[in-house]
C-alpha cells in the first residue's frame, strides 16, 4: 500500500498531479487499483513461469546447435587432414566420412559450408589443382570413393543440375558407364548386325502407355491388341532390316511390363533376326541420327540390349535413315519395310544424282528427304455396322429409298455395344452361322480418313540431310504443309515416275494396297467409328457432340467403296 502525502496533508492539486506523473507505471497501477487481487497474482505468476521456460528452451536450443556445429567442424578437419595426408591412399577415410554426411543435402547444395570446406582441404593437397569440384575429387580417389553415379542418382528428379560443370561431369560419367556396360554386355549376334553394304537404317517407333502407367485394364487390353495386330505384322516383315523401338512409361505397372517383355522375348526367340528394343521412357525424340536419341540410361532399356540401340545409331551416321511411326494397335503390310527401303535407296541415295535432281537439290544446301504417308489403309473396328441388323429387335427402319423417314431409335448406336450381358441366349432369336461369324470378328473396312494417318508415316533423309530439314507438322496436317511429290494418275505406277519428282516432298504411298491396318477399339485415344456405327445411325445428341457430317447414302455407290478397297 502506498501512502499519498498529497492527500493526507492537503497539498494543492498541481503538486499532486506532478507527483502522480513522476510515478512508475506499476506504482500508478497500484495507486488507482489498490492491492493486487489473488487472481492478478496468479496470472502474473503464470506469465513469469512461461517467460522463464521460453528463455530456458531458447538457451538450450542455441547450446545444442552450437555443440553440433562444433562437432561437425571437428569431423571435417579430421577427415580432410587424413585424406590429404594419405594422398591417393587416404580414400578409405573419405568413404567412411561420406557416410556420416547427410549425402543428399551434400549433393543438392553444392556451395554449402560443408562442401566448401571439404574441397578447400583437398585442394591444398592436389598438385594438379583439379579439386575445384567434388566430381574431380572422386575421380582422383576413384579407387576407394563411392562411384559418382550412386550419389548422382540421389539427385531428385525435378531438381535442376547444381552447376553446368556438375551436369557435364555427370554426363561424362554416364557415358563412361555406358561404355563399361557395353563391354559387359554380350556382343551383338551376327544376324542382328547391319551389314556394311547395307545403305539404309530404318527405325519403327511405337509408344506404349506413356504417362499412363497405372491404367492396368487399359494396358492389358492394349497389350492384347499389340499381340494380335501389331506384333505379327512386324515379326513377319519380309525384310527384317529395321529396329523396333517401343517406349513405355518408366513406371509402368509390373503386370503390364511383365506381359510386354514376355511377349517380346517370345517373339525374338521365334524370329532371331527380329530387332526390338523396349525402353522405359516418356520422351519421344525425333531424329535418330542425333546423339540425344539414345541418351537414356542403359538400365532403362528393359530388353537389356542397349548395345543394339547404339549399333543402329552409329550405323545411321553414314546411311539413309527412315523413321516410321506405328501405334501399338496398328499394323503394317508385310512388304512395307522391304518396298519402302527399295524406294528410299532409289530416291535418297546420292548415287542417283541425275542432272534434274541436281538442279533441284541445288536449291538447298542439304541432301534429299522425303515423307511417306499411307495412301490406303484398312480399319479393324471393334463394332460392326451390321450388328443392329443381326439383332433380334429389327422392326425399326431408317430412311427408305423413297425418302420416307421412319422411326429412328435415338439410342440405336448403343445397341452395338458388346452383348456380354446377354446371358440368356434362349431369349434371343437365333442367328445363322454367317451372321454369328461376321459379328465375332468385328468389322474390317476401308479407311476413310483424310490426310496422313499415323501407322506407316515415315520420314526419310539421306546421309547428307538432317532430320531438321523436314518440316514439322502433326500427321493430319502434313499434306497441307508439304507439297505432294507426284499425283499418280489412274493406272500409273509410281516407279514409272522420274526419280527427280521425288525430292523434298510428300509421297502418298499406294504401292501396297492397303499399306496399313488400324485398330479402332475402345482402347483407342480417338473414338471415331470405333463402335462400327455410321454417323447416320448416331443419335442427334451424339452427332452434335462429335461434330460429324452426315453422309448421304443416296449418293453412295458400291463402286466408290470398291475403289477405295482396291483389292
Amino acid at each position, binding site marked *: 500500500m502506498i501512502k499519498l502525502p498529497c492527500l493526507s496533508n492537503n497539498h494543492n492539486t498541481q503538486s499532486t498531479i506532478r507527483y502522480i506523473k513522476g510515478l512508475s507505471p506499476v506504482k500508478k497501477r497500484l495507486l488507482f487499483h489498490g492491492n493486487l487481487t489473488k487472481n492478478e497474482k496468479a496470472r502474473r505468476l503464470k506469465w513469469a513461469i512461461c517467460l522463464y521456460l521460453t528463455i530456458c528452451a531458447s538457451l538450450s536450443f542455441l547450446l545444442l546447435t552450437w555443440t553440433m556445429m562444433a562437432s561437425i567442424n571437428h569431423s571435417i578437419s579430421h577427415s580432410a587432414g587424413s585424406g590429404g595426408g594419405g594422398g591417393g591412399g587416404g580414400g578409405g577415410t573419405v568413404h567412411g566420412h561420406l557416410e556420416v554426411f547427410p549425402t543428399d543435402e551434400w549433393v543438392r547444395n553444392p556451395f554449402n559450408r560443408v562442401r566448401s570446406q571439404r574441397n578447400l582441404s583437398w585442394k591444398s593437397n592436389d598438385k594438379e589443382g583439379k579439386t575445384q569440384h567434388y566430381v574431380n575429387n572422386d575421380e582422383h580417389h576413384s579407387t576407394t570413393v563411392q562411384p559418382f553415379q550412386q550419389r548422382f542418382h540421389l539427385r531428385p528428379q525435378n531438381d535442376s543440375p547444381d552447376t553446368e560443370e556438375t551436369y557435364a561431369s555427370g554426363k561424362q560419367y554416364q557415358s563412361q558407364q555406358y561404355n563399361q556396360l557395353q563391354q559387359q554386355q554380350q556382343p551383338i549376334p551376327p544376324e542382328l548386325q547391319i551389314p556394311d553394304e547395307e545403305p539404309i537404317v530404318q527405325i519403327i517407333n511405337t509408344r506404349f502407355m506413356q504417362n499412363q502407367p497405372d491404367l492396368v485394364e487399359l494396358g492389358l487390353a492394349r497389350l*492384347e491388341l499389340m499381340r*494380335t495386330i501389331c506384333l505379327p505384322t512386324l515379326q513377319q516383315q519380309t525384310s527384317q532390316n529395321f529396329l523396333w523401338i517401343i517406349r513405355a512409361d518408366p513406371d509402368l505397372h509390373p503386370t503390364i511390363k511383365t506381359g510386354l517383355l514376355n511377349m517380346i522375348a517370345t517373339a525374338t526367340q521365334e524370329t532371331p533376326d527380329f530387332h526390338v528394343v523396349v525402353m522405359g521412357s516418356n520422351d519421344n525424340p525425333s531424329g535418330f541420327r542425333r546423339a540425344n536419341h539414345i541418351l537414356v540410361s542403359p538400365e532403362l532399356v528393359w530388353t537389356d540390349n542397349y548395345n543394339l540401340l547404339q549399333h543402329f545409331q552409329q550405323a545411321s551416321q553414314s546411311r539413309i535413315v527412315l523413321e516410321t511411326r506405328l501405334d501399338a494397335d496398328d499394323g503394317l503390310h508385310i512388304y512395307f519395310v522391304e518396298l519402302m527401303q527399295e524406294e528410299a535407296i532409289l530416291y535418297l541415295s546420292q548415287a542417283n544424282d541425275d542432272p534434274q535432281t541436281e538442279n533441284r537439290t541445288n536449291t538447298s544446301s542439304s541432301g534429299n528427304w522425303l515423307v511417306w504417308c499411307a495412301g490406303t489403309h484398312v480399319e479393324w473396328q471393334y463394332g460392326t455396322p451390321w450388328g443392329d441388323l443381326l439383332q433380334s429387335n429389327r422392326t425399326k427402319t431408317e430412311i427408305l429409298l423413297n425418302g420416307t423417314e421412319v422411326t429412328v431409335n435415338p439410342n440405336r448406336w448403343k445397341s452395338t455395344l458388346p452383348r456380354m450381358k446377354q446371358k440368356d441366349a434362349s431369349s434371343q432369336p437365333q442367328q445363322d452361322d454367317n451372321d454369328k461369324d461376321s459379328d465375332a470378328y468385328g468389322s474390317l473396312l476401308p479407311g476413310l480418313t483424310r490426310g496422313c494417318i499415323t501407322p506407316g508415316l515415315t520420314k526419310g533423309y539421306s546421309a547428307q540431310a538432317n532430320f531438321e530439314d523436314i518440316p514439322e507438322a502433326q500427321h493430319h496436317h502434313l499434306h497441307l504443309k508439304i507439297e505432294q511429290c507426284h499425283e499418280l494418275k489412274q493406272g500409273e505406277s509410281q516407279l514409272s515416275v522420274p526419280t527427280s519428282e521425288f525430292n523434298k516432298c510428300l509421297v502418298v504411298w499406294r504401292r501396297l494396297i492397303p499399306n496399313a491396318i488400324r485398330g479402332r477399339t475402345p482402347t483407342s485415344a480417338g473414338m471415331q467409328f470405333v463402335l462400327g456405327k455410321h454417323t447416320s445411325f448416331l443419335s442427334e445428341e451424339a452427332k452434335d457432340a462429335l461434330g460429324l457430317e452426315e453422309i448421304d*447414302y443416296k449418293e453412295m455407290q458400291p463402286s466408290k467403296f470398291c475403289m477405295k478397297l482396291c483389292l
Partner: protein
Amino acid sequence: MQCCSTSVTSFAVSHFCKTTCLLLIVSSEMWKSVLKRFMIAQPSVAKMRVYLTEHMAAVAQDNLQGQCTKGHSCKNSSLFILKQLVDEHASANATDRATDDAVGSATA
C-alpha cells in the same frame, strides 16, 4: 455370304440395309486378304474381341481416365463416347444384378 437374309427382309429396300450389306460383303472379302497381307489370324482377332468384350467396362473407364493425359489426345467426342460406354455398362450391370437377385429369391 448372304447379306440381308430372310431375317432382315424388311430392310432390303432401305439405304441403311444397302450400305450395311455392302460393308458386310467388303469386310468379309477383306478378312480373306488380311492373313495374306498382314499375317493377322482371324481366330486371334475373335479371341481378342472376346477379351475386349469381357473387360469393356474397365477398359472404357481406364481410357476415360487416360484421356487428356500428357501426350494423349483430348477430344470431347471421345470423352462423350467413353462416358456413354461406362454408363451403359453400369446400368447393364445394375439390371443384371437386379435380375439375378430376383431369380435367386424366386428359386429360394
